[in-house]
């Protein structure tokens, strides 16, 4: 099936982005606004294999299955979000299973369509923003310059620069190293202080879920860069993960009906411990 990239692309949002359904929704709407109709795909059924990389049989099975599903979808372009997925596709997936599509990161697509995006950013966003930058992935896709460039198009918003680069490609990579996430957060807050930032813009989802708790007791705002673009476009949204993570009572913030719909046992065992985890610092 021949499908032009403009008419239809797959937006491969990864797996852990399921925590941030509103970002998936907003990306889809932003893409549509710049002329790209996107079909989101993600979750464990579209795993890149990195979560199971201790076992070649499982990792390979997941990777092949995902490439084959994208091939069967017949779309010529897969737009990535997650840096792990993006790198795995290039390093381990497409070289093993022939991919009938090209891969492009969401930031590359939006930078390429900046002229279409700019006039849509009509709402002022009064914020002094520092982007949360890692060393990793920037060598593949220049996210540490592309995201600030895109945010710089928002009226009223000031993008600030600081040389801090956190190790790893996103915060999940350093979260397993004792003390490193707390160190990264301390250095990030110090960098914000240095440049007078009131807003931290996370680039990736794992950084976002780890950083939102930095808001507690501090006069700062932690948002994802997509939230800022959406705000400037007047797209209504709520970062529920941030609200739940910072709520004294996550259960109360979510509500009994939604918890019941999600499954009480699954919520208690899998979701609640994460939401109630103490902040890193």
């Amino acid at each position, binding site marked *: 099936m021949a499908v032009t990239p403009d008419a239809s692309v797959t937006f491969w*949002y990864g*797996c*852990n982005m*399921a*925590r*941030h*359904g*509103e970002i*998936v*929704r907003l990306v889809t709407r932003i893409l549509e606004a710049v002329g790209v109709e996107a079909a*989101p*795909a*993600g*979750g*464990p*059924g579209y795993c890149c294999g990195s*979560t199971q*990389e*201790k*076992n*070649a*049989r499982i*990792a*390979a*099975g997941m*990777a*092949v299955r995902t490439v084959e599903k994208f091939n069967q979808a017949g779309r010529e372009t897969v737009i990535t979000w997650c840096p792990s997925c993006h*790198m795995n596709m290039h*390093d*381990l997936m497409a*070289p*093993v*299973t022939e991919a009938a599509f090209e891969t492009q990161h969401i930031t590359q697509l939006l930078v390429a369509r900046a002229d279409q995006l700019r006039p849509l950013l009509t709402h002022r966003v009064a914020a002094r923003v520092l982007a949360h930058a*890692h*060393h*990793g*992935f*920037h*060598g593949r896709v220049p996210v540490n310059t592309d995201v600030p460039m895109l945010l710089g198009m928002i009226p009223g918003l000031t993008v600030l620069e600081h040389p801090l*680069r956190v*190790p*790893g*490609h996103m915060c999940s*990579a*350093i979260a*397993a*190293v004792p003390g490193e996430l707390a160190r990264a957060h301390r250095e990030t807050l110090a960098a914000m202080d240095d440049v007078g930032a009131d807003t931290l813009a996370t680039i990736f989802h794992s950084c976002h879920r780890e950083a939102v708790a930095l808001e507690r007791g501090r006069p700062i705002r932690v948002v994802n860069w997509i939230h800022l673009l959406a705000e400037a476009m007047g797209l209504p949204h709520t970062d*529920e993960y941030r609200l739940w993570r910072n709520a004294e009572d996550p259960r109360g913030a*979510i509500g009994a009906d*939604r*918890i019941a*719909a*999600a*499954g009480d046992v*699954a*919520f208690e*065992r*899998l*979701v609640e411990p*994460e939401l109630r985890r103490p902040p890193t610092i």
Partner: protein
Amino acid sequence: MRNTEQRFVAHIRDNSVRLAAACTACGVCYHACPMVPRTAALDGAAPEAVMAGIRDILRDGAGTSEAIAFAGACTRSGVCTPACPENLDAAFLMRLASLRVRGTLGDAPRVASKHDPGWSARVKAFARLTMSEEEQAKWL
């Protein structure tokens, strides 16, 4: 045609051999890595010796304790690639070494690695909270 796992393993082995042969173990990538000063097991290690150990790991060898620690410390910062004077994809080289010490090819793991047995169920539980039923049906 070889099966999925065999193709995947062959890709890892083939690239391991290729990059181990091209690497000169000069240690420039080691100097560039932000995780080195953060890894106690690498205190005082000689960069060239560590990278010689990495090459050994890529060639199915046992490596050295410091090479295993370096491979295990990789968080995919990627600064090794632009640093490499041989213009190798050093980040991919380290990724392969990291996979090997974690036991991807069936060997006993030589470093502890993060593994979340509840990952899939957790992702689905969050999806049920943040996505409508229609979105879950279409997007997952």
